[in-house]
């Protein structure tokens, strides 16, 4: 069993596959968490997901994150079940939020309306004059790079770093192993968890996975005492997340971290793999954060970083068997939710490999949906 990619998704796949009794080797051309998993944030959100397959996967994942925490791994990757607060600036936004929350509740999300006068009970430093908000007690957070590294270690998998996959070995339509820069590794099953680069890996099997980058910047402040208790963002974020627009969109999620700094992220732009700093994006994030928490105006920003979310045209990950090559599986394209969705993805892959019943319906994630001819990008 070979897993390609030692990011969050690859680590979770390794963990659940090893737990199912398989002997797993994880290969990565770089370091552990060297890809997007080391360049994003660790929000485990239900609050931003509309009713549908992604929310089902997220709900299952939340349960698994809680289980991992109960198994004692939580402190190792700074798991915090801190809850999220989504706020609305205008009455119209608040009304939209009410409708949105109602559909989520039907799907099993726990959420509670917070009227304007009660917002300060949740966040004392929030700006005055907001229309109201919703409280999502299930929203949680981890430190993603640590989570991937610790989960990988807990899996007991053999990890080969600095080893790039250059080809797949197969015969009779069945995968037999991978070719790497450091030799061949035979395997009966291969999982493609190469994130942004999963399209290239799919190509090695002659398959299509149209993974694209979506850039995000995150601002990091100086260390502060816990002035911000939960994850806080404005209702506009929900529409950004599901947008297909190429232009800069951002609506800052503001959150404190156990180590002190406040994270403000993240912008969303489709600009390819361009790392050139966008001072416009940084300015926008800062302005939005200050709109939520005016005291941040007087705080120093120490650094910012940028990462690229791996997304697929229909904004759903590809999890499941390759349509052409038997024994070859995909687990990628999680866009801005790959940390949160990783455990359920790993569990799903483990069940599919073993041919067992899956915890959530796997069909919406079937990679076969991208088999040529290529589908049109879904319009929203």
């Amino acid at each position: 069993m070979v897993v390609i990619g030692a990011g969050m998704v690859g680590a979770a796949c390794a963990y659940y596959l090893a737990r199912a009794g398989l002997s797993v080797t994880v290969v990565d051309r770089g370091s552990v968490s060297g890809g997007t998993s080391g360049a994003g944030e660790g929000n485990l959100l239900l609050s931003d997901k509309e009713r549908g397959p992604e929310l089902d996967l997220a709900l299952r994942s939340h349960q698994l994150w809680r289980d991992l925490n109960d198994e004692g791994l939580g402190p190792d990757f700074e798991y915090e079940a801190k809850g999220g607060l989504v706020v609305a600036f205008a009455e119209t936004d608040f009304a939209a939020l009410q409708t949105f929350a109602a559909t989520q509740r039907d799907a099993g999300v726990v959420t509670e309306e917070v009227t304007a006068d009660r917002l300060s009970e949740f966040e004392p430093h929030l700006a005055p004059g907001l229309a109201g908000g919703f409280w999502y007690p299930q929203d949680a957070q981890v430190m993603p790079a640590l989570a991937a590294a610790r989960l990988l270690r807990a899996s007991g998998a053999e990890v080969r770093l600095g080893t790039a996959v250059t080809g797949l070995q197969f015969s009779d339509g069945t995968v037999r192993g991978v070719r790497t820069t450091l030799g061949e590794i035979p395997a009966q099953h291969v999982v493609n968890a190469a994130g942004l680069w999963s399209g290239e890996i799919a190509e090695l099997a002659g398959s299509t996975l149209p993974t694209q980058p979506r850039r995000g910047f995150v601002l990091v402040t100086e260390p502060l005492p816990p002035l911000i208790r939960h994850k806080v963002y404005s209702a506009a974020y929900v529409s950004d997340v599901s947008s297909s627009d190429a232009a800069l969109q951002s609506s800052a999620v503001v959150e404190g971290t156990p180590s002190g700094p406040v994270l403000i992220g993240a912008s969303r732009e489709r600009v390819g793999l361009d790392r050139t700093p966008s001072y416009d994006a940084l300015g926008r994030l800062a302005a939005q954060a200050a709109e939520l928490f005016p005291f941040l105006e007087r705080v120093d920003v120490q650094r910012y970083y940028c990462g690229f979310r791996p997304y697929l045209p229909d904004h759903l990950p590809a999890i499941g068997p390759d349509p052409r090559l038997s024994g070859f599986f995909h687990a990628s394209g999680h866009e801005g939710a790959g940390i949160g969705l990783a455990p359920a993805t790993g569990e799903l892959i483990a069940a599919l490999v073993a041919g067992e019943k899956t915890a959530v319906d796997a069909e919406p994630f079937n990679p076969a949906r991208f088999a040529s001819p290529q589908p049109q990008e879904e319009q929203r």
Partner: protein
Amino acid sequence: MSVQFTFDGRPLTAESGQTVGAALLAAGVQSWRTTRFGGRPRGLFCGIGVCFDCLVTVNGEPNVRACLTPIADGDAVTTQAGDGRG
């Protein structure tokens, strides 16, 4: 010309034009901050504004770099614990 300032309430004297850090050192104070996790004492290290070890609270404002900031007459300098905002 000399200036008067206080450190944790104690009256001290410095020469005008000196930095807060130099003024404290000249007065025999080597450390004026405790770290966020270990609570360890810190004072000047790089002396040129690079290392941020010398952070101190001046007139209520935390995280002032003692090696860069000139001391002013009447300044109230206080030991800074942790991130200085607790």
